[in-house]
């Protein structure tokens, strides 16, 4: 019989906070294999996050709106700065870019269905655009990545918006990877690669470097598509203030900022946990950059989409209050589809994992049929039912955000503002630039 934690404590056994069991296992694994750990999901360590922020509901000094009855708008327009056809979304929650290759064709279809049903956009990813995805997505954002797998002008013209990806929150400064198990015949064909190899993709764009070049690159994409489509620029959160300024100078219509909690399909563990800054630290930097350029929440301005660890409507509302125009979700959408569902407990166990812990997106053995290219495993996911689950989840996120917005007296979710927020910790107060709860103190800004 194994000892319980209480038994061990009684015996005077004490676990090291520095070398805890997870750390010990990591060292043992490294010593055994000689290769770094690659996994999916996002940062797992505790970080200052949306849970460290609270809303100040209305009472005497602010006037609330009636829940359910009074109108609280949720629509957003993205990319009206230069594009002839900006995106009109019904809700401020979008589906983030996740590649066909990392995800199964069925998963991509389900995300498209869910997004379309709720009037929002979904996004391609590293592996190019599939007909299933285009067909099932009302608003489809086409990613333009360093690797340019499958990039072609026909898909560019078929897209509703173009997202130039400089980086991801899970790995700012890193390129993509897709391990051999997932480089199936179809995936390899779409990427012009040999089947079954461990695909590593570039971290830099092949034909431009720096913001001046990016200006010309954005102009090229506009010329190719006759100035019809909004052009987004996506950055992983690190030097966000400068990156956002440079992206706007380069001509971005929309800036996407992905915090370090953001999910990934396959990245080195060391990268996921140690590079980048938390989402709540990135948003105020991005907003400050946009404000200084006079394009934040302005007609013909530049919109901000935030992602990285968004799980519920409160997180959505907090992003909007801090100054985002919309948000994007990755991991939560996969969970809505069935990722980490306890009903796959036995299958996870067989893979050495468990519901709530499964992060082996790179391995291609996903019992939920989401992060796999195996034709048999994919059958676990019904794209129609999956689409409905994603739509349900998106509706809940929206209704929750509306609930909070009404409580704060806002007739539109995007009317939420930093003034509606307080922080639970000094760290969160300093990063999000809102006062510590019960005080007027924002660390780094004046005195109490």
């Amino acid at each position: 019989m194994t000892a319980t934690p209480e038994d061990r404590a009684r015996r005077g056994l004490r676990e090291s906070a520095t070398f805890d069991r997870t750390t010990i296992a990591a060292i043992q694994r490294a010593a055994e294999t000689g290769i770094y750990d690659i996994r999916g999901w996002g940062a797992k360590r505790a970080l200052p996050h949306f849970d460290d922020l609270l809303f100040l509901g209305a009472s005497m000094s602010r006037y609330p709106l009636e829940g359910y009855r009074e109108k609280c708008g949720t629509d957003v327009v993205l990319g009206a700065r230069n594009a002839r056809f900006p995106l009109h979304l019904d809700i401020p929650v979008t589906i983030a870019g996740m590649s066909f290759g990392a995800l199964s064709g069925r998963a991509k279809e389900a995300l498209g269905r869910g997004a379309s049903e709720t009037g929002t956009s979904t996004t391609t990813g590293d592996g190019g655009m599939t007909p299933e995805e285009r067909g099932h997505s009302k608003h489809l954002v086409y990613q333009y990545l360093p690797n340019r797998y499958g990039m072609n002008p026909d898909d560019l013209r078929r897209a509703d918006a173009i997202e130039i990806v400089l980086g991801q929150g899970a790995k700012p400064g890193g390129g993509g990877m897709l391990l051999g198990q997932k480089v199936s015949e179809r995936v390899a064909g779409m990427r012009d690669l040999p089947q079954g190899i461990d695909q590593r993709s570039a971290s830099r764009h092949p034909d431009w470097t720096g913001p001046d070049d990016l200006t010309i690159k954005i102009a090229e994409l506009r010329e190719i598509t006759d100035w019809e489509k909004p052009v987004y620029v996506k950055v992983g959160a690190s030097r966000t203030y400068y990156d956002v300024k440079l992206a706007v100078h380069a001509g971005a219509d929309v800036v996407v900022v992905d915090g370090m909690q953001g999910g990934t399909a396959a990245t080195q563990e060391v990268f996921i946990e140690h590079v980048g800054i938390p989402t709540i630290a990135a948003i105020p930097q991005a907003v400050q950059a946009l404000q200084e350029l006079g394009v934040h929440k302005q007609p013909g301005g530049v919109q901000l989409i935030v992602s990285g660890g968004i799980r519920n409507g409160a997180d959505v509302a907090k992003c909007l209050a801090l100054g985002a125009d919309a948000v994007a979700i990755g991991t939560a959408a996969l969970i809505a589809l069935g990722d980490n569902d306890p009903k796959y407990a036995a299958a996870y166990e067989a893979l050495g994992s468990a519901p709530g812990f499964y992060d082996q997106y790179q391995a291609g053995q996903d019992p939920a049929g989401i992060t796999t290219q195996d034709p048999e495993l994919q059958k676990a996911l019904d794209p129609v039912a999956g689409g409905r689950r994603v739509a349900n989840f998106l509706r809940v996120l929206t209704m929750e955000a509306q609930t909070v917005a009404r409580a704060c007296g806002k007739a539109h979710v995007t009317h939420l503002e930093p003034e509606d927020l307080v922080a639970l910790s000094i760290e969160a107060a300093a990063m999000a630039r809102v006062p510590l709860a019960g005080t007027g103190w924002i660390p780094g800004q004046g005195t109490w």
Partner: protein
Amino acid sequence: MSTTFDLATTPLREVNAALHVEGLAGEYVVENPRGAHNVAVGLDAPVTVTIRGHVGYYAAGMNQRADVTIEGNAGTGVAENMMSGTVHVTGNASQSAGATGRGGLLVVDGDAAARCGISLKGLDIVVGGSIGHMSAFMAQRGRLVVRGDAGDALGDSIYEARLYVRGSVRSLGADCVAKEMRPEHREELAGLLKAACYEDDDPADYTRYGSARTLYHFHSDNTY
């Protein structure tokens, strides 16, 4: 009969829009490019376009079906991601010529700078002169022919693209090696040289380079 656009008097956006009109056919001339960026990008028609002068970045980017001639030098990323058709630069090309190109033929009569054919995905490139460093970096598919010399780190992390160089190679990148010229390679090279109007070259003077395929799977010795 050809239609002429003068970039000195017509905005670029109008010129490109005119070249995107559905059902376009015939011959077009673009005068006075004066180093403009993004000239004749996104074409998708069986037309002939002659650009009389030097161009800036991304000329003929993402070309489909059109035959484009640039009478002068080209800036960064000429014919980037081209899909089909031909692009011919009579002068020199700056860096990233033919980057990520997926089909068709790009001919540069002069030299091409760094990163020529970077992330190549099926395009054929023939360079009359020499190419700079990091050329054919991560090149996946397609062929790159160089009549002169190649700079440092040729074909670093290359996949299945085939490189033919007549002159010297300053250094090879990670996982790129010289390979035997078998009859099928000589034949392939002869065809490419002919298509680029260099049929007098003897394929036997060229060396073939390609992937040693040791980086195809992650392992602990991949210290690159």
